[in-house]
């Protein structure tokens, strides 16, 4: 029913989009590129691994666990490092370096866990794939159905939270103007904590899907990272809808583009797959530095302007 390449592309796109929503959310709230996002995904990957290989349970039990672990890790990072640094008056550069340091620390932590599992528990813990532990409906693998369902739920609930709830309005106010929001009585710190929680959770969740379809290990996060940065930048880093669009656009271009190029030019081009999102991002930035969201804004504004002009001409 579904060709394998489309399955590949969709599972990948779902994971990348979940992460780039988080990346953009943190960027909006704290104005820093959160490089630790890929670390949360690795935590999710090892949640699934531990569930399946060590505890011999269903991989889908790892989903809530991955969410919770990722989210807790994010909150620890925010409360332990980011918030004190912001209080000391650190700028985005210092925060970025500290996030790189945090990423190094947590990646090393995951590596230690992987070493421990291999040396003490005797289970091969790097470069694993758990497709065999997934369920299938027809020829559609469970991970495709579940991840698509999850991302739909996430998108709808994010939309509802941002547009319908008081907390969402507080969040948008914080994004627009933090000091003013704080003056109006919004608990800005709470908003930041919740956005870090959501980011960590979503990235952890994205990580739990990966080993069910792709070969994963301690380096999965680094592999995904370039796609996530590219899709967030292409999305515009100005609202989460842009991140969703950018996530799908970039990952579909990456997977389908590399498939097409491999078919046309040769298999060797497959190893340069990570360059596709970067190249696309660079070219896109030169023409549209504001990203997809500003592009869509421009289109809509010009359409509205034209409509108004037409109505005015009509009335005159």
């Amino acid at each position, binding site marked *: 029913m579904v060709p394998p390449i489309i399955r590949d592309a969709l599972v990948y796109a779902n994971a990348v989009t979940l992460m780039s929503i988080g990346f953009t959310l943190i960027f909006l709230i704290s104005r820093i590129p959160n*490089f630790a996002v890929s670390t949360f995904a690795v935590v999710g990957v090892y949640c699934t691994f531990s569930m399946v290989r060590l505890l011999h349970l269903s991989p889908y039990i790892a989903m809530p666990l991955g969410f919770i672990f990722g989210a807790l890790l994010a909150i620890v990072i925010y409360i332990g490092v980011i918030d004190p640094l912001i209080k*000391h008056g650190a700028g985005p*550069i210092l925060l970025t370096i500290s996030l790189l340091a945090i990423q190094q620390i947590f990646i*090393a932590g995951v590596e230690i866990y992987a*070493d421990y599992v291999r*040396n003490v528990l005797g289970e091969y813990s790097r470069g694993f794939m758990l497709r065999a532990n997934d369920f299938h409906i027809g020829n559609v693998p469970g991970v495709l159905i579940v991840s698509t369902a999850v991302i739909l739920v996430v998108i709808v609930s994010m939309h509802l939270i941002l547009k319908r709830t008081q907390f969402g309005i507080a969040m948008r106010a914080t994004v627009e103007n933090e000091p003013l929001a704080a003056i109006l009585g919004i608990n800005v710190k709470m908003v930041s904590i919740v956005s870090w929680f959501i980011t960590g959770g979503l990235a952890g969740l994205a990580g739990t899907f990966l080993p069910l379809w792709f070969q994963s290990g301690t380096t999965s996060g680094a592999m995904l990272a370039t796609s996530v940065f590219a899709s967030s930048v292409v999305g515009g880093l100005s609202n989460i809808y842009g991140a969703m669009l950018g996530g799908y656009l970039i990952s579909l271009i990456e997977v389908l583009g590399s498939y097409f190029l491999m078919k046309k030019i040769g298999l060797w081009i497959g190893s340069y797959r*990570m360059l596709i999102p970067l190249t696309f991002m660079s070219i896109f930035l*030169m023409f549209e530095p504001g990203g997809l969201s500003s592009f869509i804004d421009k289109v809509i504004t010009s359409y509205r302007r034209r409509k108004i002009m037409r109505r005015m001409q009509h009335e005159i």
Partner: protein
Amino acid sequence: MRYEIIIQWIIDLIMFFILYCIVAINLNFLYGYTGIPHFGISLSVAGGGYVAGALTGRILRWIYNVYPQLDFMYENSKITNEINRHLIHDPFVGIGIFIFIIVVSLLLNAGLGYIVSRPAIRLRGSYLIIVLIGMAEAVRIIGLNYYPLVGGTFWVHVPDLFIWMGDFRTVGYLIISAFIALCIFLLLQAMSTSPLARVLRAVRENPTSAECVGKDVIGIRTKVIVLCSALTSISGVLYAFYIQAVLATAYTRAAWTFYPWLMMMVGGVGNNTGTMIGALIFITVRRIIIYYKHNIEAYVPFQVQWLEQILIGLALLIIIMFHPQGLIPEKPTKMRGLNYENIRKKLESVGIKLPKR
């Protein structure tokens, strides 16, 4: 025996200090003086390494006509051995090629710096960070996958251009590297105490007002990135000739971007002496850890390098949180071309009195 190990340890320490010093003072010039958050500095180091790895062996093979029928990459060690045998008697070719490779690396990496700076140099900080990190990753991916460049995930041997020095080779190469590093340091130091540095600081502190007084902010930033990319690549070239091999896997973000940033943060941003002290501290600590690593390895069920990574990360976090200005904070430097005494006298002659410092 013990004595020899200590000598080797010290030579290693000095060599890595020189290599990282070049990267760190360039980074300091980029970030400390001009305010460009170059989180992709590893791409210039990799660029230098790739130039040394890809060109040196090929040019020398062509000069000496060594095994023209063999594939350069697959029979690499054989060809390099033969070239080295020729080089023993040929000091001038060795020095000539060394200078040639450095010049080529400067030119190519200046071009590379220009290309990578293009997409985001106009945009604000965070975009620039993301794009530069991405670009460094791209250069690394090309090195890892394009086999003819530096042997992909294997490595390529680099002919020993200073083999004619005989027993004096290690120390001799150390002196040459130190001289080159000193030249780079003096150049950047001269630039950062000249009137140019005032422009750079203006670009760093407030690009808008710098533009208002007629400075071409984008142009200045581009020039600084191009210059520093070119100079940083020398570190890659020296590294390649030191270990006489180029490994594409060695140019990781941790080793050549994160560590130089750490050195700069430890020593103090915006001042070259501090950065060098930071580099010295960092390299010494790291060399000690590497030296004693195997003693710990027996007691823990994982590789010690992860522990090292955690410790380094924690050290950086602690420095950033409790001492963000570094060991030596930035001072207003006395600039050549700006005579404060004259300015004071002129102001006093028209009746303006300055408070005494």
